[in-house]
């Protein structure tokens, strides 16, 4: 036990003392928000700077009309389609919509011309617009007045709340939970690869520097492997904690710089001070977001993140260690990486394909219970509210999973680290697995 601790200590210190660790630890929390902030800024600027685009309309039916918006202004053109297309291609305008003289019951033949291929959303938008207009025409035809038409138009905004087991209501926001799931799942994915690769690298280095035999004459190979895996994990946790602290300090500083506050009292005071109605409205929106942020169970998420990072990392770290022990160079390791990487990638794909569409579906459930994908998928689901028993089940299978892979890896590791220049394939690994000590 004491010796495992010595190994952990060495692994930890030798990594933490590296300049690259210091650099990554300080730069990531600075660069990460800066990159995101920069992208948001550019997106806003992009939106602001967009000029109104001119859309030409050649309406042969004479039934439809388009209202100018911020983004698009409409210009009616006359003549044949051929001449309109000709004119359009010479003009600077954004698009040309051709509406033939169509049968109101069977609207066909509308064509959208643009110089660049339009996004799916854009065409959708025009489709919706035209559909609405045709619907109005049909309704008028069946005898409704303009007034009745206006009355028919209803706008509904759905506020969604989560009701917890204790009966509390919390305002939820799909966008935020989606964001949390995305960030958490993706972080686990990156951590699994980054730290797993470090374990493998470390084992290969030890093998190459030939220190291994000296060490295993004092420590059981299994203990040595555990020490290495845990040592690297503690580096990861340490780095993550520093990041969390730095990021919260930075975001706190950032928020106070922008005059935002998570404290509702302070904000309501700010609201009272605001004179103009529009300012109050804007502040209400900000306040709403702040409430949602405040209602996210940060502590729970951080604790679960640490658990799933550790569990998933132990599971994969052990396998990475086994691969490292079996080979002489990182290049040789390639052939064994595939089966380790596959489930990690399946987890990430599952996150995008299933969890975000249907966070409580059966695929999402199983992916978040199977230990090979659960760290990524469960963290992705967590923001959507997962029943406690599912979390408990997933945690138990994950612990069981990494105990199994540690055992498996240990069997390979104890033989592999003493082998030099052996040609290793899956058959050889299976033999090592069965071999007695």
């Amino acid at each position, binding site marked *: 036990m004491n010796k495992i601790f010595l190994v952990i200590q060495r692994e930890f210190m*030798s990594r933490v003392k590296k300049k690259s660790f210091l650099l990554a630890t300080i730069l990531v929390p600075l660069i990460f928000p800066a990159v995101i902030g920069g992208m948001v800024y550019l997106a806003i600027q992009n939106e602001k700077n967009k000029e109104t685009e001119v859309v030409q309309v050649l309406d042969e039916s004479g039934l439809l009309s388009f209202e100018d918006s911020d983004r698009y202004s409409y210009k009616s053109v006359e003549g044949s389609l051929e001449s309109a297309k000709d004119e359009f291609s010479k003009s600077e305008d954004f698009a040309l919509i051709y509406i033939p003289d169509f049968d109101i019951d069977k609207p066909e033949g509308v064509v959208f011309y643009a110089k660049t291929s339009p996004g799916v959303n854009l065409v959708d938008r025009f489709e919706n617009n035209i559909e609405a207009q045709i619907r109005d025409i049909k309704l008028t035809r069946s005898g409704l007045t303009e007034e009745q038409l206006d009355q028919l138009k209803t706008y509904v905004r759905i506020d969604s709340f989560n009701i917890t087991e204790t009966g509390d209501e919390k305002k939820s926001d799909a966008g935020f939970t989606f964001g949390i799931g995305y960030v958490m799942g993706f972080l686990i994915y990156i951590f699994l690869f980054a730290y797993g690769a470090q374990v493998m690298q470390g084992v290969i280095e030890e093998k190459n520097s030939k220190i291994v035999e000296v060490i295993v*004459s004092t420590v059981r190979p299994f203990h040595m492997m555990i020490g290495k895996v845990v040592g690297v994990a503690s580096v990861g946790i340490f780095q993550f904690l520093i990041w969390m602290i730095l990021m919260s300090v930075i975001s706190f500083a950032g928020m106070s710089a922008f005059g935002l506050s998570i404290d509702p009292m302070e904000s309501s005071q700010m609201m009272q001070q605001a004179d103009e109605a529009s300012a109050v409205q804007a502040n209400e929106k900000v306040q709403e977001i702040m409430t949602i942020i405040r209602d996210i169970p940060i502590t729970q998420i951080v604790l679960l993140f640490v658990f799933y990072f550790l569990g998933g990392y132990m599971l994969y770290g052990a396998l990475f260690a086994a691969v490292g022990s079996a080979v002489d160079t990182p290049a040789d390791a390639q052939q064994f990486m595939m089966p380790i990487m596959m489930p990690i990638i399946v987890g990430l794909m599952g996150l995008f394909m299933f969890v975000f569409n249907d966070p409580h579906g059966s695929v999402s459930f199983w992916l978040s219970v199977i230990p090979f994908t659960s760290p990524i998928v469960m963290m992705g689901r967590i923001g959507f509210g997962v029943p406690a028993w599912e979390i408990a089940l997933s945690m138990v299978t994950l612990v069981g999973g990494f105990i199994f892979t540690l055992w498996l890896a240990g069997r390979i590791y104890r033989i592999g680290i003493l082998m030099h220049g052996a040609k290793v394939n899956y058959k050889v690994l299976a033999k090592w697995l069965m*071999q007695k000590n």
Partner: protein
Amino acid sequence: MSLLKVENISKSYSEHQALSDVSMDIPEKTIFGLLGPNGAGKTTLIRIINQIIEADQGAILFDGSPLNLDHIRNIGYLPEERGLYKKMKVGEQLVYLGQLRGLSMKEASKRGKAWCQKLEIMDWWGKKIEDLSKGMAQKIQFIATVMHEPKLIILDEPFSGFDPVNANLIKDEILELREKGATIIFSTHRMESVEQLCDHVAMIHKSEKILDGSKVEIKEKFRDGSYIVEFKEGEIKTGAGYEVISTEEIGRGLKRSLIQYSAEGNPNELLKQLIGQVEIHSFVERIPSMNDIFISLVKGENPELAEA
């Protein structure tokens, strides 16, 4: 009194038999040479003694009690395939390895420094291993092997990588360690160091022990009763009870003959016969070197090698 008793150890790896029924006693406070050609099973035996691998059968007694993990404290091991953490500093490395052998951090640091002073590499305490020459790294490895004052020191090819000056330095250290009461298992292919250092010798060949005993006994056993005679004038002719194997000119008018006599016979009798024939300048029994014994045993066991 033996420090280590190896009793009927067998070990096999799938189809390959690495050790079969090997027993030996390693007497206390001696330097015990463990010899054998490549692949004979020496490394397997050494790894079993270090508890890196387990024997299929047999037992090992350390100081009278069955070998267990507590004995790691009392064993020092310098493997043939050896290295150090390249990115670690010399001092950190010695402290770490000392701690793994059961020393406290403080004690490990103190002893590490004392040894570095003794081997005149104290200047390197704060340097990284990757900045050291190979010979220096070897010294660090030697220190790491002996700094916890183990009762049993296992050295596998300890002199490889040393220049003659440093090899001598390490040789003196090994002798000194024996004086202080350590028992040393010394595995090597360099027979001249076996000749110089070992008190006892065992030889493993094709997984079996084929020779075991004190060096003096073994040499006595392998005496074949041949004599080297240097002489002037004339020729020695094969006579009653002896045979001339070869004769060669060695300059200054001297010749040297190898004469096969009997191991039991009185050399005075042989000498009497020779004095009548030639003018004798030197008469000495040919004691077999460890090298001769090694080669004759390996070749004798292995006819194909002998032909080659």
